[in-house]
């Protein structure tokens, strides 16, 4: 076996940069999740609508995104939009736009399932106390659905966080990008990638644990 | 009839956690006999049946099939579990029919019956198919041999399950509340098949709540109460001269059912 001497000073020297990169990745994931939630919600309602001109394009959007490699989408948006003379955005904004579109499709499936599994009696009870249609959605259906779909939303957040690694491909300085840079500078392969893997792993499971606590707070609804 | 009973249970005990479900069961089944276990739910009937087929492992006592202990061998006075292969071979000599049928949903009626014949008894496909056809015919389902379980009614599924068990030519056949999951109008067809089997000399150990059937078909009835055998004897004795309030109370619940048929 080949000897390998670990030199963790590479990591300690770059701890600040790695930390910043990790936070950037988390930020990208959270912003995309927020925008994706809005898109997903609108898409889910459109998809469940009985007007085909509303539901059909949404179906196409969701299926398109689900079959489309994220990396291709990232490049397409980043390099393709300027071809249409749309170039007001920088690479980070371009990535957020892409990841939000991506998240929107997956979230719409989550919400569609959530709306579909909504027990009828809640809506009927809301009707019975005289709430108007939008009030029924705002005060009954949406709060219940968010609680039902919370586990799926937290899974999506973790996936999105892992997907932020692809931003490295267009040189957004998140964790994977910074790791590659340090790797290229120092060639301390094991230290760099073990640390980065651990950072992703720990962050992902921290998110999972935190969201499980949130779920438990709202566990009153089954 | 030989002197040695086909199945002999001696002091069988079984606990789930701190709850002792079987508190020393003694019981004998002779070749060709139909023995029925009756009693309230929770009295340990089903657990005992499952111990006989090693779906549960009894904690103490012996269950002997043809004089050979089931699931364990005794070595230097200590119980040792038999190997997976030996246990499987013992199970193959005891058939079992379940409350929930448990047919294999990915196999047709015929294939359900054939699986044990080919994989356990090592019979060829053609021979197994012939045997399966014979037994499906005996339970009146020859025409349904190519149907999947979801295409059959509950009663038909249970008859296939009986055919699957009998086709293995077991020494002993166990029935675990086989009509409890059936719609009332389907009970009779399953009981009919069981009666016919009993008539052909099959040795059967039956857990059932169908008191009329138990009374008509059994050679021996065992009333279990709280993990013990409370009374045992020929059906006439157990049903007509219950010697405890518990048994009287238990039978009283079925009295309405008897009223119409009794002469």
């Amino acid at each position: 076996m080949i000897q390998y001497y670990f030199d963790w000073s590479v990591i300690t020297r770059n701890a600040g940069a790695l930390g910043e990169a990790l936070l950037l990745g988390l930020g990208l994931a959270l912003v995309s999740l927020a925008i994706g939630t809005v898109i997903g919600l609108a898409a889910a309602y459109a998809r469940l609508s009985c007007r085909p001109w509303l539901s059909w394009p949404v179906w196409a959007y969701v299926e398109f995104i689900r079959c489309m490699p994220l990396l291709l989408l990232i490049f397409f948006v980043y390099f393709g939009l300027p071809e249409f003379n749309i170039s007001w955005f920088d690479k980070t904004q371009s990535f957020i736009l892409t990841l939000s579109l991506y998240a929107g499709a997956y979230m719409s499936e989550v919400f569609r399932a959530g709306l579909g599994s909504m027990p009828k009696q809640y809506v009927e009870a809301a009707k019975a106390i005289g709430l108007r249609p939008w009030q029924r959605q705002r005060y009954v259906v949406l709060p219940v659905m968010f609680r039902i779909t919370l586990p799926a939303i937290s899974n999506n957040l973790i996936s999105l966080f892992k997907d932020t690694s692809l931003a490295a491909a267009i040189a957004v300085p998140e964790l994977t990008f910074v790791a590659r840079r340090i790797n290229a500078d120092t060639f301390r392969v094991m230290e760099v990638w073990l640390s980065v893997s651990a950072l992703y792993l720990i962050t992902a499971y921290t998110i999972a644990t935190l969201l499980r606590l949130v779920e438990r707070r709202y566990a009153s609804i089954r | 009839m030989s002197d040695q009973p086909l199945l002999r249970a001696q002091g069988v005990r079984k606990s789930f956690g701190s709850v002792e479900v079987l508190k020393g069961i003694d019981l004998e089944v002779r070749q060709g006999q139909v023995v029925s276990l009756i009693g309230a739910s929770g009295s340990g009937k089903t657990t005992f049946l499952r111990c006989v087929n090693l779906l549960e492992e009894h904690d103490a006592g012996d269950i002997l099939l043809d004089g050979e202990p089931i699931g364990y061998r005794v070595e230097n006075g200590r119980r040792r579990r038999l190997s997976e292969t030996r246990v499987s071979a013992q199970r193959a000599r005891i058939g079992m029919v379940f409350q929930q049928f448990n047919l294999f949903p990915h196999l047709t009626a015929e294939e359900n019956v054939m699986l044990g014949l080919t994989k356990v008894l090592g019979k060829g496909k053609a021979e197994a198919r012939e045997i399966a056809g014979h037994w499906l015919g005996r339970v009146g389902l020859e025409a349904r041999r190519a149907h999947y379980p979801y295409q059959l009614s509950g009663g038909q599924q249970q008859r296939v399950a009986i055919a699957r068990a009998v086709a293995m030519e077991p020494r002993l056949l166990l029935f675990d509340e086989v009509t409890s999951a059936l719609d009332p109008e389907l009970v009779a067809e399953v009981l009919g098949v069981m009666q016919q089997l009993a008539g052909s000399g099959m040795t059967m150990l039956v857990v059932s709540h169908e008191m009329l059937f138990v009374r008509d078909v059994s050679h021996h009835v065992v009333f279990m109460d709280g993990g013990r055998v409370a009374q045992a004897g020929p059906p006439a004795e157990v049903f007509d001269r219950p010697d405890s309030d518990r048994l009287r109370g238990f039978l009283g619940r079925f009295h309405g059912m008897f009223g119409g048929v009794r002469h």
Partner: protein
Amino acid sequence: MLDFSMTPGAFGFEAWQSRWSILSGVGVTVASSGLTIVIATVLGILFGIALSYGWWWLRLAIRLYVDVMRGIPVLVLILFTYYGLALFGINVPAFWAGVIALSGFATAHIAETLRGAVQSVPQGQMEAGKAIGLRFAQRLRYVILPQAVRRMLPPWVNTCLEIVKGTTLLSVIGVVELLLASQQIMARNYLIVDFYLLATLLYLIINFAIAQIGGVLERRFSYLRY
């Protein structure tokens, strides 16, 4: 955009010029996806069985593996494998480093899927298998797995789609699969939107084909209803 005429600089002409590059890109994408799907399915089923029925230490080890694999981005796995193997003097081409990393990731997903599917087979099935005297391996082979495989089919198809999409990440370590092949062509003719659209179309076709195959398999198992 999308000028199909056969004059130099038009998409039609440039696409015809680069047809072999595109086809070879598709070939590499299909080959790496196919290999990964086969490896990950075989290993995933073995790991899934061990996860359901293994000795406690084996279950623990595989549980750890599955959870680690699911917490790390695939791109990091690919980069780690690529640089790591080179570091230890194991000289594998980038293609194989990528297939190994993708397989490692997909194996974890399939193992977890199979464990869930095995768990969803009713307890009575195992008991009915015992009652007719089948040994453990036989119960697994003839009773549990046929039912579990049916149940894991839809998530398995999803994993296959993820694998195909994941092969685009191999471009990062220089494997000239469909995405990188398209980008190399764009670097020559600057028809960026056209060739991204072409690549998109090809990915949609590949994934649509996989979804269709999945549908056919599901219909073949349609007798398994409850």
